[in-house]
């Protein structure tokens, strides 16, 4: 990964179980930020840095994401020097927002078109926010919480560390096998992963109602997995979810019943993730149609 680029990265224990995932930013040849999901990666990294010439620290940086079809127009309006070039998918740029230099990345947690900005200790955060909201207001930018993003991330098949996967699941279990470079030299967990099943256990769900997190997923009336994430998709007009099945390799379309938030079992089926936009054309800016609201 060359400087100025990001990559998606996983960390495993020696037994192949996942600790955490995140986005690795290569800011300079010898300077990286790993924007990690929830988990104790710091201790793991320090423990495995023995003999390496590296300083691992908390730069006190906070990440905010601007996501949605008008996000690039907002960026162009907010940047003192206009739209950064190049700034492709998973790219990094340094832009000036109201005179303050800020690191931004073409990444996010929604698979919508979007970018993230990194607020550092030297920034005047209040001034930065005032500048961004002034630039974003004409394009309809508004503050929202994780629950709104959560629906979209399930649709997109973006996993949450600690709920969709944990130390008991390998990257293959979680359907993340494409991110394992088996030709790479030694890495922590490699031996265990070499012998692990390649078939995923994690699956998408479509359901009549909202799947209840932790609820059972049954096949022919027998428990066959559990729900790890659930929501109602306003776009698909359906209950959606993610399930960790006990057996690997179950096919999309497998008929199931799912424990939902009303306490009842509802009919559903396993579904391939992401639930739509299979080629991730929306975050790349290839697909730009605005979906119609369904009420």
């Amino acid at each position, binding site marked *: 990964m060359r400087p100025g680029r990001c990559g998606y990265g996983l960390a495993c224990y020696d037994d192949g179980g996942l600790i955490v995932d995140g986005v690795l930013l290569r800011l300079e040849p010898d300077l990286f930020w790993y924007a990690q999901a929830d988990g104790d990666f710091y201790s793991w990294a320090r423990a495995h840095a023995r003999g390496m010439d590296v300083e691992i620290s908390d730069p006190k940086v906070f990440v905010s994401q601007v996501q*949605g079809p008008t996000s690039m127009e907002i960026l162009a309006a907010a940047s003192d020097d206009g739209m950064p070039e190049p700034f492709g998918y998973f790219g990094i740029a340094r832009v000036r927002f109201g005179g303050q230099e800020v690191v931004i990345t073409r990444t996010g947690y929604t698979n919508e078109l979007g970018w993230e900005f990194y607020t550092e200790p030297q920034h005047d955060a209040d001034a930065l926010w005032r500048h*961004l909201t002034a630039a974003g207001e004409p394009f309809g930018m508004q503050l929202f919480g994780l629950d709104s993003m959560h629906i979209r991330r399930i649709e997109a098949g973006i996993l949450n560390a600690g709920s969709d996967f944990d130390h008991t699941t390998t990257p293959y279990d979680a359907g993340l096998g494409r991110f394992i470079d088996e030709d790479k030299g030694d890495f922590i967990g490699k031996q265990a992963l070499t012998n692990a099943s390649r078939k995923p256990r994690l699956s998408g769900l479509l359901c009549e109602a909202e799947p209840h997190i932790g609820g059972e997923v049954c096949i022919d009336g027998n428990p066959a997995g559990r729900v790890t994430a659930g929501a109602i998709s306003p776009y698909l007009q359906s209950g959606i979810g993610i399930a960790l099945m006990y057996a690997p390799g179950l096919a999309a379309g497998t008929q199931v019943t799912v424990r939902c938030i009303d306490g009842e079992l509802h009919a559903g089926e396993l579904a391939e993730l992401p639930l739509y936009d299979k080629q991730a054309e929306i975050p790349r800016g290839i697909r730009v149609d605005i979906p119609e609201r369904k009420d």
Partner: protein
Amino acid sequence: MNSSDGKTRDLVTPMPGAGWDFSLSRHPYHMIERPFGPHYCVYNRREMACCFDQLDIEEGYWQLRQKAAVLHTGEFPLQFKGPG
């Protein structure tokens, strides 16, 4: 020792330079979220807004799909510096 808002008290405070800050911390945009009635979860020992009293979840979904939505996340960047 008081926290930055002066309303809560830290019982355990990491030494400066100790690495990962093991106390609960708030996003620099925390005060901007306050008027909207945030409900927080804890993510990477950081408070992250799950939802807001003043903002409808489904409205937020369509905002994200049709215009633009901002979320101050609990992602935790860890820095690696040096040739190793």
